[in-house]
Protein backbone atom coordinates (compact mmCIF):
# COMPACT_ATOMS: atom_id res chain seq x y z
CA UNK A 1 0.00 0.00 0.00
CA UNK A 2 1.33 3.36 -0.98
CA UNK A 3 2.54 5.79 1.65
CA UNK A 4 1.36 9.42 1.58
CA UNK A 5 2.98 12.09 -0.57
CA UNK A 6 4.48 15.26 0.78
CA UNK A 7 3.20 18.30 -1.07
CA UNK A 8 4.38 21.86 -0.46
CA UNK A 9 2.81 24.70 -2.38
CA UNK A 10 4.20 28.17 -1.90
CA UNK A 11 2.50 31.20 -3.41
CA UNK A 12 4.60 34.10 -4.70
CA UNK A 13 2.98 36.88 -6.72
CA UNK A 14 0.27 35.47 -8.97
CA UNK A 15 1.60 31.93 -9.03
CA UNK A 16 2.50 29.07 -6.74
CA UNK A 17 5.46 26.72 -6.88
CA UNK A 18 4.43 23.17 -6.01
CA UNK A 19 6.99 20.64 -4.83
CA UNK A 20 5.94 17.03 -4.47
CA UNK A 21 7.69 13.99 -3.03
CA UNK A 22 6.09 10.64 -3.78
CA UNK A 23 6.78 7.33 -2.13
CA UNK A 24 7.44 4.80 -4.88
CA UNK A 25 10.03 2.15 -5.76
CA UNK A 26 10.29 3.18 -9.45
CA UNK A 27 11.72 -0.20 -10.45
CA UNK A 28 13.34 0.12 -13.88
CA UNK A 29 12.69 -3.33 -15.25
CA UNK A 30 16.41 -3.54 -16.09
CA UNK A 31 17.63 -4.79 -12.73
CA UNK A 32 18.24 -8.43 -11.87
CA UNK A 33 17.52 -9.93 -8.45
CA UNK A 34 19.90 -12.17 -6.49
CA UNK A 35 18.72 -15.20 -8.47
CA UNK A 36 19.51 -13.45 -11.76
CA UNK A 37 15.85 -12.91 -12.69
CA UNK A 38 14.79 -9.54 -14.12
CA UNK A 39 12.80 -7.52 -11.60
CA UNK A 40 9.76 -6.36 -13.58
CA UNK A 41 9.29 -2.64 -14.17
CA UNK A 42 7.09 -0.99 -11.56
CA UNK A 43 6.82 2.73 -11.88
CA UNK A 44 4.54 5.72 -11.73
CA UNK A 45 3.12 6.24 -15.20
CA UNK A 46 0.81 9.20 -14.85
CA UNK A 47 0.86 12.23 -12.63
CA UNK A 48 -2.01 14.68 -12.52
CA UNK A 49 -2.80 17.66 -10.33
CA UNK A 50 -5.76 19.92 -9.70
CA UNK A 51 -6.12 23.43 -8.34
CA UNK A 52 -9.35 23.70 -6.33
CA UNK A 53 -10.63 20.68 -8.21
CA UNK A 54 -9.76 22.03 -11.67
CA UNK A 55 -7.20 19.96 -13.61
CA UNK A 56 -3.91 21.77 -14.13
CA UNK A 57 -1.16 19.20 -14.61
CA UNK A 58 -0.86 16.06 -16.66
CA UNK A 59 2.45 14.23 -17.02
CA UNK A 60 3.67 10.81 -18.14
CA UNK A 61 6.69 9.16 -16.56
CA UNK A 62 8.89 6.28 -17.55
CA UNK A 63 10.91 4.02 -15.24
CA UNK A 64 13.96 6.33 -15.36
CA UNK A 65 12.45 8.75 -12.87
CA UNK A 66 14.29 8.25 -9.56
CA UNK A 67 12.98 6.22 -6.65
CA UNK A 68 10.78 8.28 -4.28
CA UNK A 69 10.22 10.82 -7.06
CA UNK A 70 10.40 14.57 -6.79
CA UNK A 71 8.38 16.90 -8.99
CA UNK A 72 8.24 20.67 -9.12
CA UNK A 73 5.79 22.70 -11.21
CA UNK A 74 4.43 26.23 -11.18
CA UNK A 75 0.67 26.91 -11.14
CA UNK A 76 -0.53 30.23 -12.52
CA UNK A 77 -3.19 32.13 -10.62
CA UNK A 78 -2.85 30.09 -7.43
CA UNK A 79 -2.97 31.95 -4.10
CA UNK A 80 -2.65 31.15 -0.42
CA UNK A 81 -5.51 28.99 0.81
CA UNK A 82 -6.08 27.29 -2.54
CA UNK A 83 -6.12 23.51 -2.61
CA UNK A 84 -3.66 21.55 -4.71
CA UNK A 85 -4.33 17.85 -5.13
CA UNK A 86 -1.81 15.53 -6.75
CA UNK A 87 -2.53 12.03 -8.04
CA UNK A 88 -0.17 9.39 -9.31
CA UNK A 89 -1.00 6.11 -10.98
CA UNK A 90 1.52 3.32 -11.58
CA UNK A 91 1.78 0.61 -14.21
CA UNK A 92 0.28 -1.94 -11.81
CA UNK A 93 -2.85 0.17 -11.47
CA UNK A 94 -2.12 1.36 -7.93
CA UNK A 95 -2.76 5.03 -7.31
CA UNK A 96 -2.65 7.63 -4.60
CA UNK A 97 -4.03 11.14 -4.17
CA UNK A 98 -2.96 13.69 -1.59
CA UNK A 99 -3.91 17.28 -1.06
CA UNK A 100 -2.18 20.37 0.29
CA UNK A 101 -3.13 23.97 0.92
CA UNK A 102 -1.15 26.71 -0.81
CA UNK A 103 0.85 28.65 1.78
Amino acid at each position, binding site marked *: *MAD*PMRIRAQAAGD*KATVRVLMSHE*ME*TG*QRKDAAGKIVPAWHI*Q*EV*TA*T*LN*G*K*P*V*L*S*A*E*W*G*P*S*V*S*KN*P*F*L*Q*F*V*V*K*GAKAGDKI*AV*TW*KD*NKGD*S*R*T*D*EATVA
Partner: protein
Amino acid sequence: MQTRRETLQRSVAVAGLLAAAGFPQFAQAAFNKTAFEAKSVPDAIKATGAATLLESKDVILTAPDIAENGAVVPMGVSTALPGVKHLLLLVEKNPLALVALFHSSESLENNFLTRAKMGQTSDVYAVAVMADGKALWAKKEVKVTLGGCGG
Protein backbone atom coordinates in the same frame (compact mmCIF):
# COMPACT_ATOMS: atom_id res chain seq x y z
CA MET B 1 -3.97 2.92 6.48
CA GLN B 2 -7.27 4.57 7.11
CA THR B 3 -6.68 6.94 4.24
CA ARG B 4 -6.76 4.11 1.72
CA ARG B 5 -10.50 4.16 1.09
CA GLU B 6 -10.53 7.93 1.14
CA THR B 7 -7.74 7.98 -1.40
CA LEU B 8 -9.53 5.67 -3.78
CA GLN B 9 -12.73 7.63 -3.58
CA ARG B 10 -10.89 10.82 -4.19
CA SER B 11 -9.04 9.34 -7.16
CA VAL B 12 -12.33 8.38 -8.74
CA ALA B 13 -13.70 11.82 -8.08
CA VAL B 14 -10.65 13.45 -9.62
CA ALA B 15 -10.87 11.26 -12.70
CA GLY B 16 -14.49 12.30 -13.08
CA LEU B 17 -13.58 15.92 -12.76
CA LEU B 18 -10.84 15.56 -15.31
CA ALA B 19 -13.19 14.02 -17.82
CA ALA B 20 -15.92 16.55 -17.16
CA ALA B 21 -13.60 19.52 -17.46
CA GLY B 22 -13.17 18.85 -21.13
CA PHE B 23 -9.43 18.37 -21.20
CA PRO B 24 -9.08 15.48 -23.61
CA GLN B 25 -5.45 14.88 -22.69
CA PHE B 26 -6.40 14.67 -19.02
CA ALA B 27 -9.44 12.49 -19.47
CA GLN B 28 -7.54 9.87 -21.43
CA ALA B 29 -4.26 10.44 -19.63
CA ALA B 30 -3.03 7.81 -22.03
CA PHE B 31 0.49 6.58 -21.44
CA ASN B 32 2.54 6.99 -24.61
CA LYS B 33 3.99 3.49 -24.63
CA THR B 34 5.79 3.90 -27.97
CA ALA B 35 7.65 6.99 -26.82
CA PHE B 36 8.64 5.50 -23.46
CA GLU B 37 9.85 2.27 -25.07
CA ALA B 38 11.97 4.04 -27.68
CA LYS B 39 15.68 3.36 -27.36
CA SER B 40 17.02 6.56 -28.94
CA VAL B 41 16.43 10.24 -28.28
CA PRO B 42 15.11 11.04 -31.83
CA ASP B 43 12.80 8.00 -31.86
CA ALA B 44 11.34 8.95 -28.50
CA ILE B 45 10.82 12.59 -29.51
CA LYS B 46 9.20 11.61 -32.81
CA ALA B 47 6.87 9.20 -31.02
CA THR B 48 5.44 12.14 -29.12
CA GLY B 49 4.26 13.73 -32.34
CA ALA B 50 7.19 15.81 -33.56
CA ALA B 51 8.27 15.83 -37.20
CA THR B 52 11.41 18.00 -37.20
CA LEU B 53 14.10 18.32 -34.56
CA LEU B 54 15.86 21.66 -34.07
CA GLU B 55 18.40 22.82 -31.54
CA SER B 56 17.11 25.92 -29.75
CA LYS B 57 18.44 28.25 -27.10
CA ASP B 58 14.90 29.11 -26.09
CA VAL B 59 14.55 25.75 -24.42
CA ILE B 60 16.20 25.68 -21.04
CA LEU B 61 17.69 22.53 -19.58
CA THR B 62 18.58 22.57 -15.90
CA ALA B 63 21.00 19.83 -14.86
CA PRO B 64 24.24 19.62 -12.89
CA ASP B 65 27.63 19.28 -14.65
CA ILE B 66 28.42 16.33 -12.47
CA ALA B 67 26.27 13.93 -10.44
CA GLU B 68 27.65 12.36 -7.31
CA ASN B 69 25.28 9.51 -7.88
CA GLY B 70 23.50 8.35 -11.00
CA ALA B 71 20.51 7.13 -9.00
CA VAL B 72 19.28 10.68 -8.50
CA VAL B 73 20.11 13.36 -11.05
CA PRO B 74 18.09 16.57 -10.84
CA MET B 75 16.91 17.82 -14.23
CA GLY B 76 14.42 20.35 -15.44
CA VAL B 77 12.94 21.71 -18.65
CA SER B 78 11.42 25.12 -19.23
CA THR B 79 10.68 27.59 -21.99
CA ALA B 80 9.01 30.97 -22.37
CA LEU B 81 7.97 30.23 -25.96
CA PRO B 82 4.28 30.22 -26.87
CA GLY B 83 2.65 27.32 -28.70
CA VAL B 84 4.13 24.46 -26.70
CA LYS B 85 2.32 21.11 -26.78
CA HIS B 86 4.49 19.23 -24.34
CA LEU B 87 7.93 19.21 -22.74
CA LEU B 88 10.28 16.25 -22.50
CA LEU B 89 13.34 15.18 -20.56
CA LEU B 90 15.57 12.47 -22.02
CA VAL B 91 18.84 10.73 -21.16
CA GLU B 92 20.67 9.59 -24.28
CA LYS B 93 22.55 6.62 -22.85
CA ASN B 94 19.76 5.18 -20.71
CA PRO B 95 18.34 1.91 -22.09
CA LEU B 96 15.06 3.76 -22.61
CA ALA B 97 15.77 7.38 -23.46
CA LEU B 98 12.57 9.19 -22.41
CA VAL B 99 12.36 10.10 -18.73
CA ALA B 100 9.29 12.28 -18.48
CA LEU B 101 6.68 14.00 -20.64
CA PHE B 102 4.81 17.04 -19.32
CA HIS B 103 1.70 18.24 -21.14
CA SER B 104 1.63 21.99 -21.52
CA SER B 105 -1.41 23.64 -19.95
CA GLU B 106 -2.94 27.11 -19.75
CA SER B 107 -2.81 26.89 -15.97
CA LEU B 108 0.88 26.05 -15.69
CA GLU B 109 4.16 27.68 -16.53
CA ASN B 110 6.15 25.60 -18.99
CA ASN B 111 8.64 24.79 -16.29
CA PHE B 112 9.12 21.38 -14.69
CA LEU B 113 11.78 19.94 -12.46
CA THR B 114 12.25 16.29 -11.53
CA ARG B 115 15.02 13.75 -10.83
CA ALA B 116 16.13 10.85 -12.97
CA LYS B 117 18.34 7.79 -12.90
CA MET B 118 21.37 7.75 -15.16
CA GLY B 119 23.31 4.55 -15.80
CA GLN B 120 26.43 6.40 -16.93
CA THR B 121 27.79 9.75 -18.07
CA SER B 122 25.53 10.93 -20.88
CA ASP B 123 23.96 13.81 -22.74
CA VAL B 124 20.69 14.94 -21.22
CA TYR B 125 18.05 16.53 -23.47
CA ALA B 126 15.30 19.01 -22.73
CA VAL B 127 12.76 19.25 -25.53
CA ALA B 128 9.76 21.43 -26.27
CA VAL B 129 7.41 19.82 -28.77
CA MET B 130 5.50 22.63 -30.46
CA ALA B 131 1.99 22.72 -31.87
CA ASP B 132 3.47 23.06 -35.37
CA GLY B 133 5.25 19.71 -35.07
CA LYS B 134 8.73 21.10 -34.41
CA ALA B 135 10.74 19.68 -31.55
CA LEU B 136 13.12 22.28 -30.10
CA TRP B 137 15.90 20.85 -28.00
CA ALA B 138 18.77 21.74 -25.71
CA LYS B 139 21.35 19.29 -24.41
CA LYS B 140 24.10 19.05 -21.86
CA GLU B 141 26.52 16.38 -20.76
CA VAL B 142 26.12 15.24 -17.17
CA LYS B 143 29.07 13.34 -15.70
CA VAL B 144 28.15 10.47 -13.41
CA THR B 145 30.88 9.65 -10.90
CA LEU B 146 31.64 6.52 -8.98
CA GLY B 147 31.07 7.08 -5.33
CA GLY B 148 31.67 5.49 -1.98
CA CYS B 149 33.77 2.47 -1.30
CA GLY B 150 32.47 0.62 -4.33
CA GLY B 151 31.54 -2.29 -2.12
